[in-house]
């Protein structure tokens, strides 16, 4: 079993503040964290390895600081971590990102062997686009299962898996051949505490570096210049103001609230 998990380091969106004067984000002092969905993706991959043997590899494309997030994945039980970092990637949009990760993944397959299951988070909390996973899966032309909430019956002999995902109206259970690509929800599993040996091993492991020097890249598909989408402007949304505070007795407030609710309701005649 070989699982490859695409992970991203993101600024903790909850701690990002906005400077309303300049209309920019204040990122200084904002801690970078492992995108929360990826912790669950790693957890699932590690669970599979514990059951079937094999290995879990993690890959991120990002600046050198992203090693921190990779280390967290190692301490969560991943076996090997790759950092794909290069100036040519700067400013990549999702199409360029999925290209870089696709090429990075192909390099990993070359070095570490075929991958049976690819995992990514459902979305990254900074950009919230949820496109990178579908993008990589399309480039590999392998089946995609988004919003994964349950993975069972992974059969490596028959090379197939049964997976349950969220849909607009509930859930559906799918059978897919392997290799397949999964983007995961947090409810997929509960995060477990890492045993001490994993933590020690993680502290001692080194992060493998990938760049345009050892990955076969078409520069015409990388970075800001070759990203089809461009940010024309960024601005802060109007800040919401505290509205009206209802006053009076509970009865009076209930009355007032029911008046407020009228537009959402109609009289049942």
């Amino acid at each position, binding site marked *: 079993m070989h699982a490859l998990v695409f992970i991203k380091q993101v600024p903790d*969106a909850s701690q*990002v503040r906005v400077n309303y004067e300049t209309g920019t*984000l204040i990122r200084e002092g904002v801690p970078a964290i492992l995108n929360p969905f990826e912790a669950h993706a790693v957890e699932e991959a590690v669970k599979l390895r514990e059951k079937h043997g094999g290995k879990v590899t993690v890959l991120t494309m990002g600046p050198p600081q992203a090693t921190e997030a990779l280390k967290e994945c190692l301490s969560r039980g991943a076996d090997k971590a790759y950092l794909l970092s290069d100036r040519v990637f700067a400013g990549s949009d*999702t*199409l360029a990102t*999925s290209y870089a990760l696709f090429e990075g993944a192909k390099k990993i397959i070359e070095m570490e062997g075929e991958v049976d299951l690819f995992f990514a988070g459902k979305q990254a909390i900074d950009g*919230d*686009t*949820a*496109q990178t996973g*579908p*993008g990589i*899966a*399309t480039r*590999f*032309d*392998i*089946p*995609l299962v*988004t*919003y994964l*909430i349950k993975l069972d019956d992974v059969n490596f002999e028959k090379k197939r898996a*049964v997976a349950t995902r*969220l*849909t*607009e*109206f*509930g*859930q*559906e*259970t*799918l*059978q*897919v051949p392997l290799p397949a690509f999964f983007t995961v929800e*947090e*409810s997929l599993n509960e995060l477990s505490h890492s045993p001490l040996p994993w933590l020690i091993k993680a502290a001692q492991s080194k992060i493998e570096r990938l760049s345009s020097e050892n990955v076969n890249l078409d520069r015409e598909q990388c970075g800001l210049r070759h990203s*089809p*989408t*461009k*940010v024309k402007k*960024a*601005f*802060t949304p109007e800040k*919401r103001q*505290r*509205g*009206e*505070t*209802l006053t009076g007795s509970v*009865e009076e*407030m*209930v009355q007032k*609230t*029911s008046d*407020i*609710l009228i537009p*959402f*309701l*109609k009289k*049942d005649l």
Partner: protein
Amino acid sequence: MGKTIDLTKKDHEISHYKNIWVFVEQTDGVAHSVSFELLSKARELAKQLDCQVGAVSIGRSVSHLAEEVFRFGADKFYIVEDEIFKDYRTEPFRDALSKLVIRYKPEIFLIGATTQGRDLSGSVATELRTGLTADTTKQEIDPETGMLMMTRPTFGGSLMATIVCPKDRPQMSTVRPGVFKAIPVELPKEGEIIRGKTNLTEALIVKKILKKVVSSEGNINLGFYDVIVAGGKGMGNKDNFNMIKELAELLGGAWAGSRKAVELGYAPQSRQVGQTGQTVHPKLYIACGISGAIQHLVGMQTSDVIISVNTDQNAPVFDVSTYCIVEDAIKFVPRLIAELKEQKLTPVKNEQ
């Protein structure tokens, strides 16, 4: 492993692309309301660009949607009907849709930012090697360049970004349900139906659906609701949380919870609102016993009207609330329920 579509067939001359397309998402033959919202928006944009609006749908049987599609302003309805499209599956839908785009060259392509739409749009945009702007809340035409300007929230709503796709076509974008209004045209015309074919067969599709479960309890897409009533730790216990459910039901909405409510077992994770839960933007959000931690606010602060009930007058949730009720929710909510019942008020049904 290779690519599914021969991209050399794609026309890279952007001036050859014309008209605005809207993906009509449907399940078992019933169209998703966001499709009509997008058609209405597309019509407005098409007026500025002096072009046509095309609706496009894929399914086992979708031709019956034509009347509705034309009523909301489509000039043409492109459809591909086949048994293999009975249920949504990424790969056959992606391939069929990409082929239609390559053939008919729409300049702009709008898709609902639903579970299905997000799955599909990311795949189609990659297949076509074009740009995709996800989860937009505003669409305008730049009067100078004629380009589509797509505005979307990032960082959980702390920042807005306006994005363009200057050199690739179509300019693709997903839009959240409820952002635009579906407005039928005054004098609907009988449009033209254009049927596409697929050369896919079931044997060629490796992904099989084994089971579908429709549920309102377990996993729910909160983005679908106009009204959401959410409870937090302040509800005190699981029994009290029933009043959240009852109020939601009375208002024809969905119930939800904060992360603490989830951790305490009052609500399932699938109903969590916030940074690590769902992002919602209903017409009405009622927060009961929720402090309003930033991780919660980022998931709901774009709601049209927010009513909050909290005993602490300084609770941060009030900073984003339209109406602030400084009161014990356990006292207030049951009385509100009683009042609504007494007045015999029932939820206004969605138009569609």
